[in-house]
């Protein structure tokens, strides 16, 4: 995972988002065991307390759960994971539409451009 941080957001919030992305992308599969707080903190180059806070928040949201002796695991609730994925997608779309709006594109033009892009991709990659 990529662990670079933006300055304008709390690090724990960025950690939550990064780990969630790992879960929805399947890098961290449902039911898999997470590394220890210390190992995750070392990998990310962050304070272990900050990592702990992020994991506790993910636990509160149900994305991960802990078993007292065995450690922390990714949820097996695929609906929850799908929901998180949709939330990421909605955010990407919002940012995209906002950017296109600033360029002066309306919804119809955006859809046309996307369609064109899709055809290009088909043509270029031979998919």
């Amino acid at each position, binding site marked *: 995972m990529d662990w670079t941080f933006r*300055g*304008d957001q*709390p*690090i724990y919030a960025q950690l939550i988002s990064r780990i969630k992305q790992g879960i929805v992308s399947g890098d961290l599969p449902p039911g898999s065991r997470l590394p220890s707080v*210390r190992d995750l*903190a070392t990998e990310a*180059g*962050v304070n272990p*307390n*900050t990592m702990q806070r992020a994991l506790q928040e993910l636990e509160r949201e149900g994305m991960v759960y802990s078993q007292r002796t065995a450690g922390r695991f990714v949820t097996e609730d695929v609906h929850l994971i799908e929901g998180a994925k949709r939330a990421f997608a909605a955010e990407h779309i919002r940012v995209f539409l906002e950017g296109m709006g600033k360029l002066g594109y309306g919804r119809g033009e955006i859809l046309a451009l996307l369609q064109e892009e899709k055809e290009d991709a088909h043509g270029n990659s031979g998919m």
Partner: protein
Amino acid sequence: MAILECKNLSKHYGKVAALEGVDLSIEPGRVVGLLGPNGSGKTTFIKLVNGLLTPTAGEVFIEGAKPGPASKALVAYLPDRDFLADWMTVEQQIRFFADFYKDFDPEKAREMMARLGIDPAQRFKTLSKGTREKVQLILVMSRKARLYLLDEPIGGVDPATRDFILDTIIRNYNPEAAVIISTHLISDVESVLDEVIFLKEGRVLLHEAADSIRETQGTSVDRYFREVFKC
């Protein structure tokens, strides 16, 4: 109980106040950035805490006790300059530390030196500046102390060495111990800090959680520092 507590801690040199009325307390398990421009009192503060200086006014307590032989057994101090006898070899220094400090783990130190490819038979004075800094940090971090005072641990080292130093601090994290890192290179250490203390002209300007600064100011601690200390 707080590991470190300061009450109205002040140090004057003649008419110059190097530190003035510092009140603060540091809890175990915290990694604290002591941040301030050159001459803001960072080193003076650290020297008062480990008993190298005596306060002009006010008090400092380490686990409830004033600085002295008992507190020195609890405090691991990395000065901002070379502090080891340079004619010794790295291995001799490891043994020297083992003689001095009950909480020193020589195997841990040897293992970290080996990981960095530092030859224990080499004399300290023949090492490069960066390697000397690594050796000193390894010795200090190989103690199982309650309070680590690191004075400018990342000043003047290359980015790879800086990463090693920060990595070592995270790896050695102990919920029973507190770490104070003094520096003006804030962006480099930001992500490992729980709390930050801004020192300005010997006074505490701010003592806050690092993430809470990012949350309330909407900017990194580094950017915020630059705003506060704009010349």
